């Protein structure tokens, strides 16, 4: 809202002369344009859910459960008869949901730790000349398209990781799953590199916004520089850190192309009981599954299944933006704009 006491100060006398640019009309036109955005969002939610409904309805809550090979189920759905009454819609999406969770949570966990310390370094401890280079570099890394990260991953990291897996390890699980260089660790690694710069940028801005008098006051009391950063600045910037977390999670959740390139693209749920092998097991998150099966979108039952994946992603991202909105509130209270 502009800092203007609304209509009271607005002269309306000349409005009639201006014709098309009259005040009322402009307000209404601009408001209508703004409502287009609202309509689009509502339309998106409705359309996606209506299209996704048969898949949820056919499976019930078992949709979210495990059971059977999800890739085989997707193939069966793709090959189901053309008669609407005999569509195959059976799906147990757990491996995909679990894969989404694993890659997102892993990347966000490592990314946040790394981003927090990097941000503290950039704001407080980096030598001036290094800082001047680092800041644009971070923004540059945040802008690098995900497909470029995917390309580096699949051409550089994947062959290297493939060499790390011993032949015995590959043979030991060959009857269940094929171990290659494309696996969960590579997916988490590349995803971490992809989402960290965004978090660094937001956290750096928030740490800078901490009132100087607070940190200087602490320093004057004899608190050392690290402790000032850790106890005053980081604590004040906590809402911004949550906001960064939310943004990075949304990005990781929705990343499709890059993950379809490096995650192994197999509907397999990596099992932590497998020990070291766990880190080399392939997976495939929801978003990557949509891309991998995009050619089948015109097959009605597979389309419905893929829209169900999209619906799950949509609901998750909705909850995330709600969380981000709530997280920003405390910072406003202190009069700091995140």
């Amino acid at each position, binding site marked *: 809202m*502009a800092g*203007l006491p609304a209509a009271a100060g*607005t*002269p*309306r006398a*000349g409005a009639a002369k*201006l014709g098309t640019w009259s*005040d009322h009309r*402009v*307000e209404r036109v*601009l*408001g209508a344009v*703004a*409502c287009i*955005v*609202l309509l689009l*969002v509502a339309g*998106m939610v409705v*359309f*996606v859910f209506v299209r996704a409904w048969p898949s949820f309805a056919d499976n019930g809550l078992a949709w979210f459960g495990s059971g059977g090979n999800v890739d085989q189920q997707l193939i069966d759905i793709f090959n189901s008869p053309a008669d609407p009454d005999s569509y195959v819609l059976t799906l147990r999406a757990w491996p995909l949901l679990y894969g989404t969770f694993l890659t997102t949570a892993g990347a966000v966990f490592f990314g946040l730790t*790394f981003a927090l310390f*990097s941000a503290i*370094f*950039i704001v407080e*401890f980096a030598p001036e000349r290094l800082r001047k280079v*680092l800041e*644009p*570099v971070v923004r*540059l*890394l945040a802008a*690098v*398209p995900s*497909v*470029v990260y*995917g*390309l*580096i991953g*699949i*051409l550089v990291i994947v062959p290297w990781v493939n060499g790390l897996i011993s032949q015995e390890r590959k043979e030991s699980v060959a009857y269940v799953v094929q171990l290659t260089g494309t696996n969960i660790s590579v997916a988490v690694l590349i995803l971490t*590199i992809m989402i960290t710069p965004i978090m660094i940028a937001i956290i750096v801005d928030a740490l800078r916004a901490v009132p100087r008098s607070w940190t200087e006051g602490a320093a004057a009391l004899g608190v*050392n*520089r*690290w402790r000032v950063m850790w106890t005053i600045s980081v604590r004040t910037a906590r809402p911004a850190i949550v906001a960064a977390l939310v943004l990075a999670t*949304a990005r990781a*959740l*929705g990343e*499709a*192309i890059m993950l379809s390139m490096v995650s192994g693209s197999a509907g397999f749920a990596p099992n932590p009981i497998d020990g070291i092998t766990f880190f080399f097991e392939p997976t495939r998150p929801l*978003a990557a599954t*949509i*891309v991998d099966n*995009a050619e089948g*979108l015109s097959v009605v039952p597979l389309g419905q299944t893929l*829209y169900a994946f999209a619906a799950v992603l*949509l609901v998750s*991202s*909705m909850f995330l*933006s709600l969380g*981000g*909105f709530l997280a920003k509130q405390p910072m406003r209270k202190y009069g700091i704009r995140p």
Partner: protein
Amino acid sequence: MTTASATAPRDSPSKWPLIDRLGLGMAWAAGIMLCLIAGAIVVYMLVKGLQELNVDLLTSHPQPSLDQSKTGGFLDPMIGTLILTVMGTLIAVPLGVATAIWLAEYGRPAGLARAVESGVEMVAGTPSIVLAIFGLLIFQESLFAAFSFTAEGGAVYGRSFLAASAMMSLIALPLVVGATREALQSIPSHIREASYALGKTKAATIRRVLVPAIRPGIATGATLGMGRIAGDTAIVVILLGATLQLQGIDALEPFGTLRGTGSTLTSYVYVNSPAGEGNAPEKAYAAAFVLLAIVIALNFTVDWLARRGKEGSAWTR
């Protein structure tokens, strides 16, 4: 702290408690790792890109062929990126600026304004893959048949430059709205009041005073949005058809091209990576290098615009 202060104006980390020194060490380690990773990515892409890039690649059309020496270059994907970026921005900027002005200057009724605000935030948080298949759903309706081509049984294909750029504009929209709102909020209210005092209406104030003043802000948002559009892959793969060449429809040029399918640099990189059908890493590297150069150029433009926005128009302070 009575003895040390005389000699050391700044306490040295060697006297800190162990846990603090550990934290400092972690911060340095993280910072140095960041430098190394960033340096590695930039240098690697630079070396690989310059190795593989040549003029032929930039000026020849891609051809379907099993022989790598005959698959041509990526002229069409470059044109595709250009078309999508320009059209997406052209849709996003008016929509975004109008929304931002309404939110910041009018915003009545307050409930609706809050709803629009969270709507914009939701668009920002929606994965582009979801936007892509939502776009497919819309543009396959027969109502929008004019935007793409219609197959012989009346089925609308739904994939075209028009459809893709409409969805791409949604990616850029939150950035335009954010930058424009920020610029509007940074204009002090006495500027507006001065305009009212001269007898201008609110609408006239927006048109003659505020919009000229926030132009650098709008440009920043638009450029950020262009970077996003140029870098997005999911929408291109699903909503642009990702055909190698621009496949226009026999209609009036240039509208035929816009209704047709094509590819962009991002989808070209994807298709030519080992994950795609093309599997020509050299070409993928070269295309990724060009893509990266475009994104970096846009990035510098944002910096330059932001600086100019701060210097120029001193009257808005």
